[in-house]
């Protein structure tokens, strides 16, 4: 093949798509290659939330930056992307969790994100389907949800309009020293290769610390108006933090279609994609504790997926020290939809050798070698 792109991107998930979009906008010639199709792995399996999270200062910086990029893009997104700025409502069950609401409110506010504290009464007004009693909640009005496979397709369509070439159904055998070898014998020579293969990234770049973290989701039939915000329990922070044990947390999303997406569950060290009825049951019961009327709604589909998780819960964005032709953009765990656009920007900044809007050091893959990431 005579096509000689500047950059080859391996992976047409949301992260690869965002990198393709940002690079094509900067006039790079880009090839995007995926073994399956657009957004068929973690991108297809996830909830599609765009939210600011404060597990760490670095996570907050990346999610806040990326959300600002999504906000700028929002008006261009076609209806199929189902973008909806429904906001997140963090639900506090008791006074301890209410203290967390206050802390979060202050933390977000000091960093320029407006939030609103709701007392028990205001929470009831905002979401009548929630059980009573609850202590209150925190509304983050800027958060949004979208339908990720179509978001990835939109970004790649924009990239293609700017000249990017998209190769779907093409497995990549190896990437090394600027050479990308496809299973069908095609070879690309390029200056840089972006490994955006998500949970499969370590197969192409051995040594990266990315482990699949399994999740389960349930989607219901259409019940428009049941809830209007994305609902999250504050216990989520505690349970998601536990690195080894299986955990469930209440997370309920209203989709634009009127459907409800019920999450979430996290499991490590499970390789098969089978539905695990034990954890599914725990997840549903947790959701029904918060929204009792869910029990009578019709569930039409259950599925599983794998998040590409890193030891310190931050993605790898930056050059791979062992091979300067490889740029990693992988390991976004459950936040890949939110942080994809920022990842694309950081990749462009690196290639153009320009300063980024946020400090890039926390996300550099070299932190792994320095031993910082070993939790």
């Amino acid at each position, binding site marked *: 093949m005579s096509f000689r792109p500047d950059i080859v991107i391996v992976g047409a998930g949301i992260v690869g798509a965002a990198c393709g979009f940002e690079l094509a906008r900067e006039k790079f010639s880009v090839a995007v290659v995926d073994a399956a199709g657009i957004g*068929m792995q973690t991108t297809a399996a996830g909830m599609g939330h765009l939210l600011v999270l404060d597990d760490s200062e670095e996570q907050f910086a990346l999610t806040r930056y990326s959300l600002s990029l999504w906000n700028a893009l929002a008006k261009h997104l076609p209806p199929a992307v189902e973008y909806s700025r429904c906001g997140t409502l963090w639900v506090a069950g008791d006074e301890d969790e209410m203290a967390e609401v206050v802390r979060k409110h202050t933390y977000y506010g000091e960093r320029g994100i407006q939030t609103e504290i709701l007392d028990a009464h205001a929470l009831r007004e905002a979401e009548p389907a929630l059980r009573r009693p609850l202590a209150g909640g925190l509304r983050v009005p800027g958060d949004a949800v979208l339908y990720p496979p179509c978001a990835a397709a939109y970004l790649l369509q924009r990239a293609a309009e700017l000249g990017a070439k998209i190769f779907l159904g093409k497995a990549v055998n190896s990437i090394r020293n600027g050479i990308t070898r496809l299973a069908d014998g095609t070879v690309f020579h390029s200056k840089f290769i972006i490994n955006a293969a998500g949970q499969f990234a370590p197969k192409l770049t051995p040594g990266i610390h990315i482990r699949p973290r399994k999740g389960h989701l349930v989607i219901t039939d259409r019940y428009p108006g049941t809830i209007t915000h994305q609902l999250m329990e504050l216990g989520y922070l505690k349970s998601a933090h536990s690195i080894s044990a299986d955990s469930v947390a209440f997370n309920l999303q209203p989709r634009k279609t009127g459907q409800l997406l019920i999450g979430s569950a996290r499991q490590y060290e499970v390789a098969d994609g089978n539905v695990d009825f034990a954890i599914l049951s725990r997840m549903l019961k947790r959701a029904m504790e918060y929204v009792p009327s869910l029990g009578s709604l019709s569930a039409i589909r259950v599925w599983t997926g794998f998040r590409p998780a890193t030891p310190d819960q931050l993605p790898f964005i930056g050059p791979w020290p062992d091979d300067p032709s490889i740029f990693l953009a992988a390991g976004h765990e459950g936040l890949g939809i939110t942080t994809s656009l920022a990842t694309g920007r950081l990749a462009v900044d690196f290639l153009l050798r320009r300063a980024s809007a946020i400090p890039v050091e926390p996300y550099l893959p070299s932190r792994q070698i320095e031993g910082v990431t070993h939790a």
Partner: protein
Amino acid sequence: MNAESKRSFDVAVIGGGPAGMGAATVAAECGLSVVLLDDNPGLGGQIWRGESGSSKHTQASHWFDRVGRSSVEWILEARVFQVGKGHLSAESPDTVHQIAYSHLILATGARERFLPFPGWTLPNVLGAGALHSLIKSGLPVEGKRIVIAGTGPLLLAVAAYAREKGAQVACIAEQTTGAKFACFGLSVLLVPEELEEVWQLAWQLQAVPHWKNCWPVAALGKERLEAVRLSHHGRIREIASDYLACGFHLVPSLELAQFIGCAIQDGYVAVDENQQTCIPGVYCAGEPTGIGGFELALVEGQIAGFAAANRKDLARKLWRRRDAGLRHVRALRRAFELRDELRNMPQEDTLVCRCEDVPFGLLRAHQSWQSAKLHSRCGMGPCQGRVCGAAAEFLFGWSNSSVRPPLFPVRCSSLAEMPVETIPEIHEGGSK
């Protein structure tokens, strides 16, 4: 909220049509405890719907009577949404049934394939079998003009029944060629059991135009169907019509078999001479092993029932009849193979998926059912792809082998109450 019922049986039969009734009855007559589950309000399946207590169909009344006298316990309006090793869960309007079983017999039947063409979503455009059922349950058709289009002998049966109820059947539009149809007619002459029925049909339909090489191009009308545009021998004709009933074959309902990992061969569940699937103790009978009508389904069901009861001697006695039925199935498949031109029936804006309003043009861009589903939402609605999946399979050659739980939409509370030991072995090829 949900009442819960936990029971244990030697045999669980899923599907209460002829195959399931045959299987359940003989297994019970051999002394086994048998449960028969069906999602309809009555036994009989699509073909014998509502014939309980009627004396007209001798086979039907024989089996309704026999199953009624047996020890079979049946649970109606129950959808099996989860099957694991030795255990299944079904939901009926107010109860979740947890059933432990030793042998499982799948008799899940078939549904109509509907191929999309412009106007197919207009009111009064129906499946051929659906029209049949509606007339049976009281839809008045006296004096109504009906066009019946599609393929296969089902069209003739529906036409005859509609005429009997006073409808004017304007024409039967059969997509296959006259030559193939004639061959099929000859093959029927070799099956004496079919002969009488065929003569009767031919007699009843002698006044009805029966066009070969003919298929619908569009259903026309504003609020509801007013006329049907047909392609007949390459010429376009328009026929004024109150109803259009279409049937482009029955497609086997394989979801359950696929879900538990039964091998599928050429689009049907692979079974041995005793109707056992590749999973020991799991049998399959009726349309999922080959579309052959109720007589074959009855025989296959009985073989499965006898085999489950370990009465292979009795099963063996039915092999010859079953094998004759299977020869008939192959003749049917040859005669009524869908022609390529039918893939051109939909226009760019013709809906393929009604649940999610997905037009043909949007689907064409995709390479696989997985990709099309993900990006267009085709098949993601409450019918779970049961309608558009069969259409997409024919139109694009996509196969849909991954079946996800729940097998049917089910209340969240029922799903949450699933016993945790029920972990099926699912092998998914794709992502999600």
